[in-house]
C-alpha cells in the first residue's frame, strides 16, 4: 500500500506551502526592488512586518488548539492607546517600560476573558471573540477617543535603529518566538495542544485537561497581541484606537497561508510567521508595481480564498483519478 500522498506531505510539512509562497513573493519583490536585501531596506521592512508576525504567531496557537481569536486587533488597539495616552511624547523611559509591563498584563487578561467564555462557558469561539473584539475596541476608544498621544522619541528611535550584529532587530525577535515555539511543541503541553485541536472529545477521554489547554491558548494569543501592540506603537510612535482593526484578518490570513488548518490540530507557528512576512512583501509589491493600493486587499483576499480552497482542490483531482 502506498503511504506517500500529497495530503500526508502537507500534514507532515505544513509550512511547505508557506515557504513556496514566501520565496515567490521574495523573487517578485526583488525584481521590483533590487535593493531588497540591503541592510537598511531589510531593517525597515522587517520592523514594519514584526507586529503582524507576532500577532500571527499567537493566532496560530489558538487555531492549532481548535479555536480562533477575532479579538486580537482589539487587544492591539488597547495596548497602543494605553501606551500613547499614559506614557506620552514627553514621558520618561522608566514610565514606558512600566506601561509595557502593564500592557502585557492587560493582553493576558483580555485573552483570559476570551478563554473563560470559550473554554469554561463553552461558547462558540468565532462569535464570542467577535463580540469581545468590539468590547476591546470600545475600551481602546474610551482610553483615547481621538488619535494622538505618543511615546518618547528615544524609544521609537531604539526600535528603529537597534540592529545587533548588523541584522534587523526583528530577526532576533522571530528567532526567540520560533525557539519558544519549538520548545513548547516538544513538551507534553505541545502534544495536548495538537490533541485538543485535532479531536477534543478523544482528548478528553484520554484524560487530557481539555478546558485548561483551550483557556491557555487564548491567554497566549492575548499576550502575543500585547507584544504586537507594543511593537506597532514603537513603530508608529503615536496612538490610534483604530490601529488594530485591520490586523485581525491579516493574522488569520497569515496562519492560513502558513499551512495551519483552520479546523485545528495541524500546522505550527513557523508557517504563519512566513505567511506574515509574505503578506508584508505583497504589500511592498503592490506599492512598487505602481498600481492602485486597493489592489492589495484584492490580492490578499484572493490568496486567503485560494489557500482555503487548496485542500479541496487537491481532493477534487484525486477523485478524478
Amino acid at each position: 500500500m502506498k503511504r506517500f500522498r500529497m495530503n500526508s506531505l502537507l500534514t507532515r510539512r505544513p509550512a511547505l506551502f508557506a515557504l513556496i509562497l514566501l520565496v515567490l513573493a521574495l523573487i517578485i519583490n526583488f525584481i521590483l526592488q533590487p535593493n531588497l536585501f540591503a541592510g537598511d531596506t531589510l531593517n525597515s521592512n522587517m520592523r514594519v512586518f514584526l507586529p503582524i508576525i507576532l500577532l500571527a504567531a499567537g493566532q496560530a496557537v489558538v487555531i492549532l488548539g481548535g479555536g480562533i481569536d477575532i479579538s486580537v486587533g482589539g487587544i492591539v488597539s488597547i495596548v497602543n492607546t494605553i501606551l500613547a495616552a499614559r506614557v506620552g511624547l514627553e514621558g520618561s523611559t522608566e514610565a514606558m517600560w512600566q506601561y509595557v509591563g502593564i500592557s502585557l498584563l492587560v493582553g493576558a487578561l483580555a485573552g483570559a476573558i476570551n478563554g473563560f467564555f470559550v473554554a469554561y462557558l463553552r461558547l462558540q469561539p468565532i462569535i464570542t471573540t467577535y463580540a469581545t473584539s468590539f468590547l476591546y475596541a470600545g475600551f481602546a476608544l474610551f482610553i483615547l477617543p481621538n488619535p494622538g498621544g505618543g511615546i518618547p522619541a528615544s524609544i521609537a528611535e531604539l526600535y528603529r535603529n537597534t540592529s545587533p550584529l548588523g541584522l534587523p532587530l526583528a530577526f532576533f525577535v522571530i528567532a526567540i518566538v520560533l525557539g519558544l515555539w519549538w520548545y513548547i511543541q516538544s513538551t507534553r503541553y505541545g502534544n495536548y495542544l495538537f490533541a485538543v485541536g485535532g479531536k477534543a472529545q478523544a482528548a478528553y477521554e484520554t484524560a487530557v485537561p481539555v478546558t485548561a489547554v483551550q483557556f491557555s491558548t487564548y491567554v497566549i494569543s492575548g499576550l502575543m497581541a500585547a507584544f504586537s501592540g507594543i511593537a506597532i506603537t514603537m513603530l508608529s510612535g503615536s496612538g490610534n484606537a483604530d490601529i488594530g482593526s485591520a490586523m485581525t484578518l491579516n493574522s488569520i490570513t497569515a496562519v492560513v497561508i502558513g499551512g495551519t488548518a483552520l479546523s485545528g490540530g495541524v500546522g505550527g507557528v513557523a508557517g504563519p510567521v512566513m505567511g506574515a512576512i509574505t503578506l508584508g512583501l505583497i504589500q511592498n509589491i503592490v506599492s512598487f508595481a505602481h498600481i492602485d493600493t486597493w489592489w492589495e486587499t484584492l490580492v490578499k483576499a484572493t490568496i486567503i480564498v485560494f489557500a482555503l480552497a487548496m485542500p479541496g482542490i487537491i481532493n477534487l483531482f484525486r477523485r478524478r483519478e
Partner: protein
Amino acid sequence: MTLSLSARNVVKRYGGVVALSDGSLDVNAGEVVALIGANGSGKSTMSKVINGVVVLDGGQLLIDGKPAHFPSPQAAKALGIATVFQELSLIPQMTVADNVWLTREPLGAGGIVSRKMVNARTEELLALFAGTFKTDLRPDLPVSELPPDEKQIVEILKAISVDPSILILDEATASLDSRQVQRLFELVNKWKATGQAIVFVSHRMEEIFRIADRFSVLRNGKTVGAGMIKDITEKDLVKLMVDKASVFSFARKSGQKDEKPVCLEVSELQTRTLRGVSFNVREGELVGIGGLQGQGQRDLLLSLFGDIPFAGNVQYNGEPVHFRHPRQAMKNGFALVPGDRAREGLLYIRSILENMQLPSWMRYGFPLKIGKAKKDAEQTGASLNLKMASLMEPVSSLSGGNAQKVVIGKWLMRQPGLLLLDDPTKGVDVGTKAEFYALLTQLCDEGKTILFYSSDDEELIGLCDRVLVLHDGHIKTELVGAALTKENLVSASLGVAEGDEQ
C-alpha cells in the same frame, strides 16, 4: 496493581433520557466480566461511569470496598482504569506513537518529549500484534492513514500501555478479523493471569463464551442478571437480554434456486482495491460476501451502487449497466444499506419520517402529500416492528437496532429488486438481528436478490445460499452447500484455501 471495583444502583440521565436507571457491576482482579445487553440498554454508559467520562446522577462506586468519586477521566486513569472506546479515542492527525502515549509521554531534559523513547516503546507494543497487520504499521504514521482494524488495535495498545488494573473493552473486536481477535484473546488471558480485571462489552455471543468468566446483563438501563458464564447457556443469556425470548435460529436456505434466471452478472470489476472480480447472482438468491476486513467488500458494494468509479462490466437483468451516480442505481431498483449507519445511512437530527422518505419524496407530488407519506412510512415501520414514539421523533432518539431498521425501511419503501447490504447487523442487538435474518429470508422468498457482506461468519454460514470469499481484491473461493462451513470460511479468509485458486 490489582483493584476491585463495584458500581451499585447507578443512575445516569442525559437530559430527559434515562440511560441507566439501576445499573450494577462488579469487577474483580484476575477475571473477565462480560457486560451484555441489547443496543440502548446502557452498556456504553456503564463503561463511561466506570472510567469517569460521565459523572453519575445516582448510586455509588466502590473501589476496594471504599466509596469513590470520579469527577473526570483523569481520576479514573490515575487508578489504572483504561478504556478501549467503541468510537475510538484517537486523534486522527497525530501519529500512532503520539496517540498511544498521549498524557504519559516519556520526558527528557527540560520536559521535552523523547520521540525516540515514544517510538521505541510503541514498537514494543505493536509487537504484541505482530503478524496480524495487512500494512506496514509504523509508530510514526498518522492514525488517519490507517485502515479501521489497525486503528482499533492502536486504540487497544493505547489502553494497555497504561498497564491498567481494570481494562474496559467496549466493542473492541468490532473491526478486527478473526486472527486479530484470536491474538487479543490470547493477550486477555495473559493479562488476566497477572491480576488485571477486564470488562468485555460485546454483541458477539461466540466471543463472550470464549473469553468471559462472568456476565452481567443490562436491559433498558437495569441490571437484570449476573452470574458465571459456565452456568448459563447462550439461549438463556439471550432470554435475559430481550424481554421476550426471541432466540434466533437461522431459517435455513430455501431449496433450489438454480432454475431462476441470472439477474446480476459482474465481470472483471476493478477499483482501487478490487483487482478483477467476476460472479453471477440468480434472482432471489442471498449471496454472502466474506473475508477479512478491508479486502474490497465495501468497494464492491459501493461500485455496484454507482458510488465510486470502477472498470469492468456489469449486467443487470440482461442489460449492461454502468452507474456513475447512485441516482441511476436507485432508478434501476438497487438499494444500498451502507456500512457506517451514523455517517452514510441516516440524518440523525432529522425525523424518522424524513429519513424513511428521503429516497422517495419525488413520488409524493408537489405540494407533498404528507398524509400519504406518513401512512406509507407508518406501514413500513410497522412491518419492520420499528419501535418509535412517533414518526416525527428524530432518528437520534432510536437505539442502534431501530435506527438500522429505518435505513432498511427507507429502501424497502422503494420496492428494490437488488439489495446491497454492507455489514447491516454490526452493532445491532441480538433481538433485532433475529428479526433481520427473518426479514432477509422473507425478501428472498419474495424474489428479491440480496448481496450481503458481513463481518460475522456465523451469519454468512447460517443465512446465505453461497458465500464469495474476498481476499486481497480477488474472489478467493466460492463456498456452496456442504462446503460452506466455518472452517472453510476462516481458512479461505486467511488466503490459505486449496482448490478454486484464481
